[in-house]
């Protein structure tokens, strides 16, 4: 005969937690961090580390190319901020991004309203939609090559303008120090407006029809409806897009580099091309880092407005 006895186990006293439970509670707390770890690591490796390195380079001299780099404080910043080429690049960038953003907005809104109108049929709208979106489908390299050919002194643009009697002689759009900045800005506007157009079209389609009906009942005309209904409804989209566009356009490098290389005579020099030349032509990685940090700070100001606007929404 066998008898079974219950094992002697002490009941856990109040406030005491068994090791198993302790482990499981800790695991529960760790799980969210575990999921976040890959992303956090990627952010650290791909963003935080490079940014910190560039900032540290900007306070040193002889970085990267020599082993004996030395701390120089703000000397690189002083050098960059007193360099006439940098100031020219800053001015050009300000003109380039402001004109581009305004033109993107005006063109994008105009085309979006056209595509949203009831006056055109579905097929016509579809055709225009494809035509208007075409510039967005080309890569920057293709855009640069196409427009270099079009804007050549013996290119199509001059031929058309000459035929129409607008100009008498071939204009050197990209080779003239007074025209080059406007020429590359025009190309940037051409290549970037479709994104505005699509976003604003989505915004327009989200405006309730009742608002327009109510405005019509009040006896408003088209312009009044545009100013008092359309624009206020699109305001959040317009502000977001404009701030993002300013940030993106300030980082435009490939288009400028492939079209003019920052020339002629620094007429199209941008902060991006200036920084690139400092790093990869002059091998002045310290001043290039200082210039990059200045660009980062300027971009952060724009990013601040973007984030604030998003929070308000």
């Amino acid at each position, binding site marked *: 005969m066998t008898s079974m006895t219950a094992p002697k186990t002490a009941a856990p006293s109040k406030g005491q937690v068994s090791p198993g439970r302790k482990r*499981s509670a800790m*695991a*529960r707390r*760790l*799980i969210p961090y*575990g*999921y976040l*770890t*890959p992303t*956090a*690591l*990627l952010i650290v*490796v791909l963003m935080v580390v490079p940014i910190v390195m560039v900032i540290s380079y900007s306070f040193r001299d002889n970085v*990267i*190319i*020599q082993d004996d780099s030395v701390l120089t404080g703000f000397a690189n910043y002083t050098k960059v901020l007193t360099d006439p080429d940098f100031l020219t690049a800053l001015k050009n960038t300000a003109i380039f991004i402001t004109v581009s953003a305004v033109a993107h907005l005006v063109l994008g809104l105009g085309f979006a309203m056209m595509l949203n109108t009831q006056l055109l049929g579905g097929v016509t709208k579809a055709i225009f939609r494809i035509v208007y979106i075409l510039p967005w489908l080309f890569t920057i390299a293709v855009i640069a090559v196409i427009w*270099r050919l079009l804007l*050549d*002194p*013996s290119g199509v643009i001059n031929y058309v303008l000459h035929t129409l009697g607008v100009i008498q002689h*071939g204009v*050197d759009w*990209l*080779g*003239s*120090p007074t025209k*080059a900045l406007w020429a590359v800005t025009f190309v940037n506007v051409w290549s970037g407006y479709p994104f505005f157009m699509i976003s604003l079209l989505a915004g327009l389609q989200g405006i309730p029809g009742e608002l327009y009906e109510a405005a019509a009942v009040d006896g408003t005309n088209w312009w009044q409806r545009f100013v008092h209904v359309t624009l206020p409804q699109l305001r959040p989209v317009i502000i977001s897009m404009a701030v993002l566009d300013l940030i993106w356009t300030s980082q435009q490098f490939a288009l400028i*580099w*492939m*079209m*003019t*290389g*920052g*020339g*002629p*005579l*620094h007429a199209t020099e941008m902060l991006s091309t200036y920084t690139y*030349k400092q790093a*990869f*032509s*002059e*091998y002045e*990685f310290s001043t290039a880092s200082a210039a990059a940090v200045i660009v980062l700070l300027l971009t952060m100001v724009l990013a601040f407005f973007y984030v604030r606007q998003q929070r308000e929404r």
Partner: protein
Amino acid sequence: MVLRTSRLKRALGAVTAAALVAFVGACGSSNSSDTASGGNVTLEFAQWWGAELPSGEFDKIINDFTAQNPNIHIKLLSAPYASTKQQLITGAASKTLPDVVGLDGAWVNDFAKQGAIADMSKLMSDSSYDASQLASQVQVKGKTYMIPVVNFVYPLFVNKDLLAKAGVATVPATRTEFLDAAKKISATGGDVKGWALPLDTAVPNGIQNDVMSWLWASGGSMLKDGKPDLTSAQVKSTVNYVKSLNDAGVIAPGSLTMKEQDKVEKFTNGQVGMMIDSLAHINLIKKNKPDLKFEVAALPAEDGYTGKRGIPYASWGIGISNSTKHKAEAFKFVSYLMSKETNAKLSTIANGFPGNKNATPDFSNSDPMFKTAFDIYQQGYPANEFVGLPKSEDLMRTFDEQLQLVLTGKSTVDEALNKSQQSWSSVIE
């Protein structure tokens, strides 16, 4: 319990994945190349040559090397010139260059100063290599860091039809004849101009190929005892001459942002009558415009000059990474490329001139113009004073900007040369 275990596993999985990412990241930052297993060595060879040669031709040359040296494998990292340049500049800065690298003479000084490329003089002496067979070596402070494998010369290209239409009977051989011919071609009307001058500052090699070439063709030099000498009478005469071409209105418009490819395109389309260009473009021009009648000639020299004419060139150079563990094997590969037979073969398929003096390219299947150019090359001497200079691209850009000021009437020749001299002197010490 099961649920808890599964959660724990998931948490561990996430942490493991993160660790893996970190590990991969760490691997990415380590030195790139050479795997040695069982006595076999794999050498990475980064260059832009493979991208410019007919498909598969470079692989054949590499395979022959592997057949002769079964324990050395070559992994080709071929990319276009611009990408290769960017990769090598960042690789040199981070000391992660591939074992063997294709080099442009313009990069050598900076790479050598950074300690990124190896002293090949030592490797040559260690392996008792006969350096006398090399046509040239690029040195920094007396040590060889680059060996030019194939050279591409830049002769004068002349559109024969335009020259005939302009009533010019002979190809210009002097500066006066060139200006005269350029004026007559420009006078034929339409959009046609006598000459193209690419001065784009993104890649400012127009200064080397299209401006300084006039100086070298008359036996001049922009350096004196290794220091800049831009205010010399010869350099001034060269810049004045380019200005006179501009003042005469014979230069194709758009030159301030014109790139080398634009120049070739304008010549191919018959929009300019003459250009100074790489011989490597003959096939491209013939492919794009088979009926274009053109020929190559020596660069015009100053009136009355009778000495040997310098002819600008660009090279496919080769160097060895200072951080490779297999320098001996890497040099064996370099020796193979520089051997008489291989070098001749490579020059033939590249339409260039060999870096080995004893190698003779086979022109039997090439355009007769290559033979003409080879004769010009042998009668003159290869001249490119930017090779081996520090920050040479930046030197070209500085000169380019000053020349643009002269051509737009914003500066005098003397002012431009003085400013260039000052700027260059701060770089070339």
